[in-house]
């Protein structure tokens, strides 16, 4: 990938390469100033590898889970990748249903994905196939829930004196 080109052209490079994935890439959107690739679950790992090896996105900035209750594709993963040489960032999104919560691990591409994926497992219950040490990281080992799912209450549910309508959401 050529070095310093203007941002629109860099986005175009990504778009051109993504065309090879055909219908596996379900959409390419511009969210704010960041290009975002939506990909089907079975192609996620290949896509990340392509982005890393062919388009120079060799730095994994974040990987985090998402939960959209009430939608068929209820759970999601969001990756932020960074091409430091070209100063180009990209967001990769992948969605899945609640009964299919197993992704391929990205630890073979970036060792740093290790703890990010453990955090995602810890908080969302999303599993990563092939992860070397997939166990809870910030919560205690026998914690009974996945706390960042939207159905996990923040307040103690037995309390009567707090009305959620007055406290944020």
């Amino acid at each position, binding site marked *: 990938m050529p070095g310093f080109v203007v941002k629109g052209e860099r986005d175009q490079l990504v778009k051109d390469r993504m065309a090879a994935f055909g219908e596996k890439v379900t959409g390419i959107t511009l969210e704010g100033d*960041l290009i975002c690739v939506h990909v089907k679950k079975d192609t996620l790992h290949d896509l990340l590898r392509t982005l890393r090896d062919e388009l120079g996105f060799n730095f994994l900035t974040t990987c985090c889970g998402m939960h959209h209750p009430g939608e068929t594709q209820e759970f999601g993963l*969001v990756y*932020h990748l960074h091409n430091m040489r070209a100063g180009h960032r990209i*967001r990769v999104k992948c969605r899945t249903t609640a009964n299919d919560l197993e992704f391929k691990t990205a630890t073979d591409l970036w060792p740093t994905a290790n703890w990010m994926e453990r955090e995602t497992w810890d908080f969302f219950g999303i599993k990563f196939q092939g992860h070397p040490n997939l166990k809870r990281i*910030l*919560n205690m080992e026998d914690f009974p829930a996945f706390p960042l799912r939207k159905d996990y209450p923040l307040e103690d549910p037995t309390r009567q004196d707090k009305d959620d309508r007055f406290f944020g959401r």
Partner: protein
Amino acid sequence: MSTVEKPDYWQKDLVQGRDLRELTTLNLGPTHPATHGIFQNVLTLDGEIILDTEQTIGYIHRAFEKLAERRPFYQIPTLTDRMNYCSSPINNMGWHMTVEKLLGIELPKRAEYMRVIVMELARIADHVICNTIIGQDAGATTPFLYVYQWRERIYEIYEEICGARLTTNMGRIGGWDRNFSDLVWQRIRAILKEMPAGLKEFEKMLVRNRIFMDRTIDCGPLSGERALAYGFTGPNLRACGVDYDVRVADPYSGYQDFNFIIPVGQNGDTYDRFMVREQEMWESLSIIQQAMDKLDKMSDKTSIRADVPEWVLPPKEEVYSAMEPLIWHFKIVMGETAVPVGEVYHCVEGGNGELGFYLVSDGGRTPFRLHFRRPCYIYYQAYPEMIKGGMLSDAILTMSSMNVIAGELDA
């Protein structure tokens, strides 16, 4: 050299091939004075040499990401304070800028430069802590006690700006709640004038100190390639020779207007990390000086925020005497301000590296999802690789030079 090659016959029974070593399991932490925070390392030792480490973290996990989903945007800075509590203002500003990016607010230059001043002061305070503690853990208490006064002087500036010292909750979305007082400017000028002598004194004690150099050179090294693979950012990455700095790569808050260099190291060892932080303090002082000069030249001394009454609480006297401020006050306190639907990722150069905020807004009064990219959390996972095969005492130094802050580790 910290890595000791042991002859094979120490480890194996040459006849039967059994493991003859007597291994020790040692708990380093959770509350150990050398960890400077609450996290645990279960070390497997062969004598004094580290063979393996199992890290346990999460002792002060406070679920900020979950809490943030139930707090209006303007209440979230108090959560960010408590991540890297050695440089809270950077975290605060990072969050303000994230929301401003979502809302499309542009700040007047004066407000941006005031932010730059505060962020660079915070960086100095952060690096002072880290560097003096490297000395402390190597057995040099004097520099720690000498240089800590500068951190105290910086905290006095915070105190004058916002009333708090450690968890600052400084500034507002859209700029500043009030102008800096004369005392703030006096104190900043005093630091610019007096700190170079103090820093020089500190460097005299450690930088070319034979004992310190022997102790830190080649201690916990990491190559630039591995550092990138492990997601290192900030001074730790730059010590490995990669010149990535968010202030230059993705300039925010007017950093593009300043002239400064990004110090890089070569070997990625403890000494390089120390030196990179040391140089960054000098650069920070220079940035503050440049910002002060720019502010002095500005004719406009009052515009400290964008025109966003929906994010900055109006002065109390106006709330009690006029209708519109009263309405805004009520709306802000009840979190009734309209927010667009959208997603933003914004990052700032924190004391430890790229501090990122991934904010998903569904138009509600709180974020739908907020993810913090905490640099500590991400680079601390490289610790086992960095200390494997080295001495236990080197592991302590490596940890302090990585500047692992428990609050940022656990969020």
